[in-house]
């Protein structure tokens, strides 16, 4: 084994080692999820040296420098204010979801007008329109971190795979018998998973365009799905009140997470694949042990349905969005409520962290998106301008650009 070079990853903080083994180039990552500007660098470097054989004495100085660079990035003050940059009016019907590619150079929007559009973030120009679906384009995704492919899931029961560069359609995945409402690429970008109102999820081979597996077991609509960071497991959240954990390779059911008393709205893995967070119409969010499938805690406090949940990039914080118009931030490990985000005048349908984990972004039926300080719960900004409900919102990887998609048929770029 010979170390070739280091790569630095800002969010979540980590160092990627590129090394040679038996003539083959491989990578592994050292996650530094607890790193803060206050961390003792020398001590941490020593620790890494002890546990990672690739880090030899001659390399320690380099590691030290990388950690310091990460610390600098983490310590950067984040008091940016966002202004409306562009209103994109090319869709003729309401938007559904929005998503950035990894670099943030472009993003995509799905719409009731049956198209998905690719946009240039810097100019707000429309790059391509992906046409072919015969009904609402509901679920969309880039194959991040690569960003050269796009998958779209439609109410027409099909999923399509497209080239992000040319807008050409590579494959149409047929097999679901009802609307496709959620999808995701695996981290290796070899598979697309689709979840459908037909109660099944399917895995599709990107290369061949063929179905790789059907995940059957839920007794109601699948509404949310998520791969873990490694890509060997996938979870599906269903209107049948349960979440299922599946082995990707075999398509076998590993655990069913039972405990919610209402439909599931969202199910997510955290970065190190230790926890699963789920939101439900039963007004709670639950945290589960991702290994044994046991419920670790029930996060209560919301007075109405929990419509969305998410982890921050390090997987240490959980944010919940509710139909009661409030959002909350919890610690994933202690499960204590850290902040209550109060101020929206309508249900919050979408919530996400900035990659730095310092801000929360919420999109609401009150036509505004709001930006919150994670630690104080203070509302820092109200992004106003949409003339109808906001259905979706997202941060780019740098955390300096926001997009919002609305029922008013527009997408807005804020930066």
């Amino acid at each position, binding site marked *: 084994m010979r170390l070739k070079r280091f790569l630095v990853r800002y969010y979540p903080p980590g160092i990627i080692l590129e090394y040679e083994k038996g003539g083959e180039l491989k990578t592994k990552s050292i996650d530094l999820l607890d790193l803060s500007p206050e961390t003792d660098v020398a001590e941490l470097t020593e620790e890494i040296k002890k546990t990672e054989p690739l880090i030899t004495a001659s390399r320690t100085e380099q590691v030290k420098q990388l950690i310091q660079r990460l610390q600098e990035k983490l310590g950067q003050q984040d008091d940016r204010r966002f202004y409306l940059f562009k209103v994109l009016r090319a869709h003729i*019907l309401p938007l559904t979801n929005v998503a950035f590619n990894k670099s943030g150079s472009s993003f995509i929007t799905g719409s009731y007008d*049956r198209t998905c559009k690719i946009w240039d973030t810097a100019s707000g120009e429309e790059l391509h329109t992906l046409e072919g679906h015969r*009904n609402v384009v509901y679920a969309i995704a880039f194959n991040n971190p690569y960003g050269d492919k796009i998958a779209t899931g439609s109410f027409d029961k099909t999923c399509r795979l497209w080239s992000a560069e040319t807008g050409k359609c590579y494959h149409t995945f047929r097999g679901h018998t009802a*609307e496709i*409402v959620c999808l995701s690429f695996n981290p290796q970008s070899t598979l697309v998973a689709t979840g459908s*109102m037909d109660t099944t999820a399917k895995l599709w081979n990107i290369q061949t365009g063929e179905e790789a597996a059907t995940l059957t077991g839920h007794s109601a609509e699948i*509404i949310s799905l998520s791969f873990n960071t490694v890509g060997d497991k996938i979870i599906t959240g269903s209107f049948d009140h349960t979440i299922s954990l599946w082995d990707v390779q075999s398509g076998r059911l590993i655990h069913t997470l039972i405990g919610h008393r209402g439909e599931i709205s969202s199910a997510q893995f955290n970065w190190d694949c230790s926890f699963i967070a789920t939101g439900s119409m039963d007004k709670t969010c639950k945290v589960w042990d991702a290994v044994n499938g046991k419920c670790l805690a029930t996060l209560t406090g919301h007075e109405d349905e929990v419509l969305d949940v998410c982890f921050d990039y390090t997987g240490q914080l959980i944010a919940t969005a509710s139909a009661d118009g409030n959002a909350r931030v919890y610690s994933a490990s202690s499960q204590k409520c850290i902040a209550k985000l109060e101020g929206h005048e309508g249900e919050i349908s979408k919530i996400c962290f900035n990659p730095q984990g310092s801000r929360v972004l919420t999109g609401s039926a009150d036509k505004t998106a709001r930006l919150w300080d994670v630690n104080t719960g203070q509302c820092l900004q109200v992004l106003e301008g949409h003339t109808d409900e906001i259905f979706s919102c997202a941060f780019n990887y740098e955390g300096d650009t926001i997009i919002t998609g609305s029922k008013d048929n527009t997408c807005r770029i804020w930066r």
Partner: protein
Amino acid sequence: MGLLSILRKLKSAPDQEVRILLLGLDNAGKTTLLKQLASEDISHITPTQGFNIKSVQSQGFKLNVWDIGGQRKIRPYWRNYFENTDVLIYVIDSADRKRFEETGQELAELLDEEKLSGVPVLIFANKQDLLTAAPASEIAEGLNLHTIRDRVWQIQSCSALTGEGVQDGMNWVCKNVNAKKK
């Protein structure tokens, strides 16, 4: 009504829930009718660029009413919403005689849709508060409604503005959905 609520309303409805599709040309008064049904303010209504959904209780039913924009350029997208429809309500501006042919054509196309086959249809002859409004009988004749034989249908004159006739129409809806859901 976020995306998730829309998905929940998309499911084939349980017994006591009815999915109603509200269609018609632009300016027929669909949104006004929807708001009248929900007892909401109808003084500031603008052309619908997408859709509106409201749930109202009536005679033991929960009516989930989908009001879809009627402008020409978005009419091709009406089919997005056909799935699981229990009752179709078609709204006509009874005072806009110049567009009777156009509205009749759109209705005929809807009745030919496979996904709407057999679905009961209620036609609201709206805007009866206007002096120039054609009576329901004249519209029924003009649109050849009597040739509809593949489903139950009804024409009801109404004014979405004043509310007159609206409840009568909804009573017919509840009665006929009942027959179908049984």
